[in-house]
């Protein structure tokens, strides 16, 4: 019996710490370091869990259950499947990096800021470990609250409009999901995600699916994305695209597909088509975006599409590839946004027109951006490549053109990512790039290097995830073709 057994700890430790931070009048430094410590403690707990996780039986582990709304058979039920373990790992590591980034750049109003970041951590973890539909929904929406304030208070000049659009958009989806889950839960008499039977009601499926499609996002539900990613502070954009967006995909993996096998297969082509549209459309727009964040934003939009294709291909390859790709892209986009942040701190902008030539004399920045960028364009051998390869191999089972579209998108990815790299690092020095603009400082390296290192480890051994996704659970109920 160790801390690892208490999945709840992963949720409530940061939230508790947030409350402490809000209440105690700590100094800026104390607040920041406390927050970073807690987020690192999260990572520690997760490692403990990962080490003691028994992948041989893929079932739910470290689970805890308590009655919540006995009247409607809603319970507080948390636990981890193998794949949720990976999602949680992604969350805690990225959140630690982002919190530390906030500490490094010294956000003003530190108590509010770090409290919200910790609260966000707890909420996101909650989404990934919740085993009760209402609990899942609760955390799914709880994510929104800190995000709203983080973007709205610490964001860029256009933040007000961006936040409203972001919140209204996502809530539109998730409220329909509320209706759907009420319909499902009240009808079958339980909200528990383990004992809940499969349903073949297409409307309910669509209700869930819409929420996830907006969160991920899939085409054409991405209207909130560009503004939010551009206006949010870099580390929050990192969380948004790296982790929060993944909640939508997790929802498809954990709820939409296994609980609604028949509707899922009925709408398979439609969803895959939306994914493909997102993939192509996003890639093209990323290719045209004039700023670094824009490119990363649209590229993660495209990635969501690709992952959705993998999930709805309904094949083992697709599932495993999707899980791997989710984790890999999570780290990639987090790292890229943080790097964008460091660039903005040095040049006050991320417009390509004003950047360039930063590689000269800044080897660390150049190396990290190059490595991350190259991984994100899925150069063969990278974790992203492994993920995309499996996804498309799975999609090929459905029809050859999915794979063809995906392959085409890989080329596009190469085009826009190289554009970013050369526009920031290469060619003539940009007007905003001062000579005295420093290379990455040790503090920044300490944030970004671990992310990149994780990516390299994943690249060296993607099977570490793909062979331990345990999506079999999901697939058995979703009658997936192996």
């Amino acid at each position, binding site marked *: 019996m160790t801390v690892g057994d208490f999945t709840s700890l992963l949720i409530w430790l940061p939230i508790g710490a947030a409350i402490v931070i809000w209440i105690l009048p700590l100094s800026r430094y104390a607040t920041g370091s406390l927050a970073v410590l807690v987020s690192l403690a999260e990572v520690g707990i997760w490692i403990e869990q990962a080490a003691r996780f028994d992948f041989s039986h893929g079932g739910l582990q470290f689970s805890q259950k308590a009655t*919540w*709304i006995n009247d409607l058979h809603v319970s507080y039920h948390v636990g981890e499947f193998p794949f949720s373990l990976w999602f949680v790992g992604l969350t805690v590591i990225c959140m630690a990096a982002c919190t530390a980034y906030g500490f490094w750049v010294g956000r003003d109003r530190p108590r509010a800021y770090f409290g919200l970041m910790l609260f966000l951590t707890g909420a996101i973890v909650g989404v990934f470990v919740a085993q009760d539909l209402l609990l899942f929904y*609760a955390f799914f929406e*709880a994510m929104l609250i800190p995000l709203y*304030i983080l973007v*709205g208070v610490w964001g860029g000049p256009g*933040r007000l409009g961006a936040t*409203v659009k972001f919140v209204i958009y996502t809530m539109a989806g998730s409220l329909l999901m509320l209706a759907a889950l*009420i319909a499902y839960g009240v009808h079958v008499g339980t909200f528990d995600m383990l004992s809940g039977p499969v349903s073949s009601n297409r409307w309910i499926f669509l209700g869930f699916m819409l929420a996830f499609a907006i969160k991920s996002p899939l085409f054409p539900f991405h209207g909130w994305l560009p503004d939010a990613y551009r206006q949010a502070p870099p580390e929050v954009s990192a969380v948004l695209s790296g982790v929060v967006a993944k909640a939508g995909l997790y929802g498809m993996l954990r709820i939409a597909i296994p609980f609604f096998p028949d509707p899922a297969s009925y709408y398979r082509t439609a969803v895959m088509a939306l994914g493909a549209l997102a993939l192509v459309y996003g890639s093209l727009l990323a290719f045209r975006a004039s700023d670094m964040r824009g490119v990363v934003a649209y590229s993660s939009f495209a990635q969501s599409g690709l992952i959705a294709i993998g999930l709805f291909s309904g094949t083992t390859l697709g599932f495993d590839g999707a899980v791997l790709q989710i984790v890999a892209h999570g780290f990639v986009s987090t790292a890229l946004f943080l790097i964008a942040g460091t660039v903005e701190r040095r040049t006050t902008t991320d417009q390509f027109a004003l950047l360039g030539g930063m590689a000269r004399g800044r080897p660390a920045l150049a190396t990290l951006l190059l490595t991350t960028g190259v991984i994100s364009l899925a150069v063969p051998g990278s974790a992203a490549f492994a993920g995309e390869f499996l996804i498309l191999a799975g999609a090929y089972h459905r029809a050859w053109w999915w794979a063809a579209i995906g392959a085409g998108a890989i080329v596009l990815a190469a085009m826009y990512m190289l554009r970013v790299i050369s526009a920031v690092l290469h060619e003539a020095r940009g007007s905003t790039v001062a000579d005295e603009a420093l290379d990455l400082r040790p503090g920044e390296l300490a944030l970004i290097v671990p992310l990149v290192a994780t990516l390299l480890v994943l690249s060296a051994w993607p099977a570490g995830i793909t062979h331990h996704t345990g999506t079999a659970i999901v697939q058995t109920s979703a009658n997936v073709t192996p």
Partner: protein
Amino acid sequence: MIHTPHVDWFAISTMLVLLGASFVALLGAVLVPRDARRAFAATVSGLGFAGGLITSIWLYVTSADGHLVVSGAFYRDRWTMLTQIVICGIGLVTTLVGAEHVARPRNDHIAEFFSLLLACAAGMTFFVGSANLMVMFLSLEWFSIALYVMCAIDYDVEGSLEAGLKYLIIGSFGSAALLFGSALVYGATNRIDFAGIAANGHSNDSLLVLGLAMIIAGLGFKSSSAPFHMWTPDVYEGAPTTVTAFMSAATKVAAFALAFRLLRTAFPAEEHLWSWAFAGIAAASLAIGNLAALVQRNVKRMLAYSSISHAGFLLIGLSAGSALGGRALLYYLIVYSAMAFGSFAVVAARERELGAPVTLDNLAGFGWERPFLGVAMWFFLFGFAGLPLGGGFVAKFYVLSAAYKHGWAWLVIVGVIFTLISLYYYLAVVRAMYMRPSEELRLATVAGGSPPRESLLHIAVAISLAVSVGSLFAVGPIVDLTKHAVAALPF
């Protein structure tokens, strides 16, 4: 030789305590020197409500088997008692806020104010337990009249007077309708006690139905649900904020608690009629309340509209008409009253420090200047919006589930859509408090130097916060309370 009926004094002890306190406070108005009046009256009122809490809790515990007392005029059961508990709680926090915030020059009428507050609460506690149309009508008038006076008590302010008069006239019209409806029901069944009405009524008796319609209108007025809601924004805006806070919380509790009992006990056979009627009214309230709130700048007024929209949600639970609906209704009432009261209390604080009506613009930066009140406010607002930051989340889920179980998916969809719309203006308040750029923050200069110390108000807000957040976690216990309460009603 008249055989006076046996009176179960204990059953009505809550009202007696409150009335007693009210009289003491009234005496204070004349006996206690002016400078001590505020403290004295506030203390008395606080003690009165505390006593009311104790007795009502005690009664809740002891009246597991509901029965009629005082010759069938009053229900002594857990439905009554639970609502009495809530009302007394609201009264208590109102006292806390009022002690600092009922601003009268040189404490004029401060004692009378608390006396009226107590009397009003007493009337409500009577109202929720009334067992026949006459007692219902009388106690309704009782607390309504008290409310009319409380709304107008700031009669140096034109708005307060206007609010009072509007409330009085529209209220009297509404109660006249209620009365005529009662008369028709009486005519149709020759009975005025709820059970008797249920026994003698035929659901195809047009007299009865017409009476029911007029009663619904009367109650709809009290619960400020569309289209009987028109008075709400004006009165809420014009009345002293303390009174508004009390009204928005307590009146809803009383009105809905009684409405549900009345319909279940007196008109079970007509369920197919009133459930549909209330479903329609609910949809209307949701639509009007939320849409009108979208364009408000005055925060009090916006909250008034939002209370209309919440009446819509409560009506969803009511219209479900089932035991589940009743539980959802009570749970929602508890959570909502906490949130509503808290939010108005925060507005009161800002109002006092600005010396002007609170608008979205002069709210700018409030969150950073008064961290506790700010955080509390966004907890309340997100709770209103049904985000999982408080019981509001469970409450919405609960009523919608009830509606769906009743087979009304369309009502679920309506509720969901208008929740989405409501998000816009709730977030607007948070935006105003936290996200305005610094040059706008300068709007929020405090009238008269640093913000006044308002320990009592902070306590009141803290209590509301504790209830609204705690209810998210302690769903089980609360639901058990409501279970027992609902068990007292016939199904």
